């Protein structure tokens, strides 16, 4: 593993970047990063008691997305997806479907509680959430996720067998990004996932 490779491996895990690291990731000059930081186009903070600028990972990703900068230096290219459903067979089915794509790193949970725990540790890009869970309802999970500003870019796709327009509206209000009815067409499902994650569908 070359140094660059090792560095890149570190960069993949880093949560806070210096302006130099951000310049490397974005493949621009450090001056550009500093100018963007100071103009507010790139959000971050200064280390207390010093003038050192620090940029949180989420902010850097946002900045890169906004400016169409390729993110392969900072991200592995694998999108993390958390599947939450109390029916293990459905979880299994979804894992199979997502696994066929090859670009997803998948974790599963069968309760709302587990979903909350993994949201923090796994930091998924997308949560596929069954509305009816044994402990709490999907809209509560949505609200909990949205309560943390760090997760504001996390996508939530609700899946449910119950199609009550009022409940769907509640879910969307609680922070869900989309809804899909069970049983689903696998093509439709993967298309929605790609749309939400803003990645091209593999033909």
């Amino acid at each position, binding site marked *: 593993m070359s140094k660059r490779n090792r560095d890149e491996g570190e960069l993949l895990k880093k949560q806070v970047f210096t302006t130099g690291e951000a310049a490397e990731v974005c493949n621009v000059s450090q001056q550009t990063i500093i100018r963007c930081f100071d103009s507010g186009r790139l959000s971050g903070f200064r280390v207390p008691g010093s003038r050192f600028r620090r940029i949180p990972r989420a902010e850097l990703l946002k900045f890169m997305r906004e400016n169409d900068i390729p993110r392969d230096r900072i991200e592995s290219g694998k999108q993390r997806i958390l599947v939450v459903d109390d029916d293990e067979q*459905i979880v299994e*089915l979804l894992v199979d479907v997502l696994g066929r794509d090859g670009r997803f790193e998948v974790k599963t949970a069968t309760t709302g509680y587990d979903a909350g725990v993994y949201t923090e540790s796994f930091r998924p890009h997308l949560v596929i959430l069954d509305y009816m869970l044994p402990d709490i309802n999907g809209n509560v999970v949505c609200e909990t996720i949205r309560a943390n500003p760090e997760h504001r870019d996390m996508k939530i796709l609700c899946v449910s067998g*119950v199609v009550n*327009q009022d409940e769907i509206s509640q879910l969307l209000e609680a922070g869900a990004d989309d809804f899909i009815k*069970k*049983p*689903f067409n696998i093509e439709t499902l993967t298309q929605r996932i790609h749309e939400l994650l803003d990645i091209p569908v593999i033909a």
Partner: protein
Amino acid sequence: MRGQEAGRRVDLILEQIETLPTLSAIAVRLLSITSDDEADVREVVRLVASDPALTTKLLRLCRSARGGIGRAITTVDRAVVMLGLDAVRSAILSIQVYETLSSASRDETDDKARVFDRPGFWRHSIAVAVACKLITEAHHEQARTRRSRCELPKGDEAYVAGLLHDLGKIALDVIMPKSFDRVVTLAEQYQVCMAEVERRVIGVDHHTAGKRLGEYWRLPHTLQDVMWMHGQPFDALPDLPHRNLVALVTTADLLVRRQHIGFSGNRMRGEDLDATCRECGLDPELVRGIVSKLHETSAEHASSIGLDDAPSQELFLASIGRANEALGRLNVLLEERSSLSMQQGKVIGAISDFNAAAAPGRSVIGTLGEVVRSATNLLGDGLYLMLYQSRRSDTWQVYQFSGDGRMLRNHDAVPPTGCKHLADLSDEGQVSMRTAAVLPWLTDYLGDAVDMRDVQLIPLCCAWGVAAVLVHDFGSGVQTYPQALLGAITTTWASAIAGAAQHAGAKSLGEQLVEANRVLAETQHKLTDARAMARLGEMAKGAAHEMNNPLTIISGRSQILVSRLAPGEGQEAAQAIVEQAHRLSDLITSLHLFADPPTPARHETDLRALITELAKDARRQFPDVKIVHDVPDDVGKVWIDPTQVSEVLAELIQNAGEAQPRSFVRVAVQADPLDGRLVIVVEDDGVGMDARCLEHAFDPFFSVKPAGRQAGLGLARAQRLIEGQGGTIELSSESGEGSTARIAIPHWRKDQSPHSAQDAA
């Protein structure tokens, strides 16, 4: 209050009795002497003899009393010896009483104008006295051979009793001559007992007045009781020792009145002399037997106390004349009575006709008309209005009727300010006064046809109050009736009207009850439906969750299989599994949506665009069918749930398209000209529906379509959605002619929608 006033008045009258002159000392002394004691007798003789005028009169009286023997009586002393003290005492009392009261005679009144004939009265009193004496003597005579239960005092005592029995009349006459004249007139006019009239007019009758005078003059109790109680039936008398004396006076009084001697003032008829005699144990034959002697003896006695010198024959003629006079008056009275009874007859006839015509369950107005018909028969032609106020109404209704009870016109009248409800105006005057306030208005209402001065208001009162007011013009020659008579029929009318009003009230209550029951039944039905739907909704919701999970796995796994299998190697089978899983899921979803439809979310919607879009879809689906639509410009933007209405219309257009229309499917929109609801009609000229199909068209899962098309929830769901927006959906169809579905949605303009506020919020 009135009772107290009357009581004071009676006391005043009775006190006045004590202002009358007292009896002379001789009379008082005479009354205190009870025995034939020698000393007493001597004293009486001495007293009488000291009064020459009295002596003369006494001797005359004694002479007349004893016929032949009497002629030998020339001195007071001799009179007492020959006739006994009692006889002399009676004679003196008679004279004294007469003189006392004659001298107390009214001074200024003109005798001629007086109704109460005082000399006549004295003649009557003397005749009664004589009759008493004659009957007593005859009775004592008879009692020697035949036992009788009737015990009578000596003839002379009976004489005094008879003489003084009506003394109260004289007393009343002296005290209040005018009132007493009126009593005499009324008693004669109505042929009733004088005492009754006295009680009404004066407040006290001559019986009480007589008793008081007797007490004042300290007359013996026997006499007081005669004055007080004579004239009463024997059985009604208290158990007194001198009960028979009282009865004797009653009998004698009756006998004398029958003989028309003198003037008693009493015109009571119908008493049976024989019965009166038998009651007290007197022999009627005996009583009648004295009549021959009665006239002559009475005349003698009258003249002996200085009344007059009319010979008995003349006295008889006078009494006959008097009887004729009384008869004449009686005839006039009878004529009046007969005219009254004719009127009574007419009124009773009218009441009976009115009641005969009464039909149960007649309306208030019908009854008012009947009353007018009855009134026309009774009172004659003329104007007839009825003023009526129903229990719950604030206004009066004025109805004008023709003579035969047809209603000509009616009008609302606002009652005068502060006026109570018509029914509560129980006082007659109040009705006239209050209703008079509508009279100016009535003048306008009636125009010049009627002279308002003739118009009268007759309140029709019954136990419930004033049922209505009859307005009648009493103009030209209308038959009039006494108030009391008219009252009899107005009460009948009023009761009929009040009865009709009660009946109408009860009827309307009954109708309201039936209506309420019907609504209740409908509500219960709807509630049952709603409950069934709620249960179905819960069940479908559970089913949707429980069944869609396995279906997801079936479908998902099959889809993976489809992608892995090659065509011809099971891919088709896997694909079929996927489709059937989704079909089953759709069914569950539609069942769920049917039972628990989402709350309509109204938005301002361009209906024309919506229908145009639907028509475009339909043309794709049914390329061979001509699909036309017509949305008028004035409908414009509508306030509906576009998703739901779109879903419903799609279902209807789909049905129409599948009905094999010969030429077209038409979607037309308009605002209902009657109730303003938004009406969307989808019609086709396809195969139509038969009656059975039409009846069950909205039932879930009812379908006549060939198998393969989705289960028949479409129309049922369409109905649920439209009803959810407060609207209705109707189907009409002719088999072979085509079908028409008609949706009507209320409150479809944003500003008229009750939902707009909450939707905006």
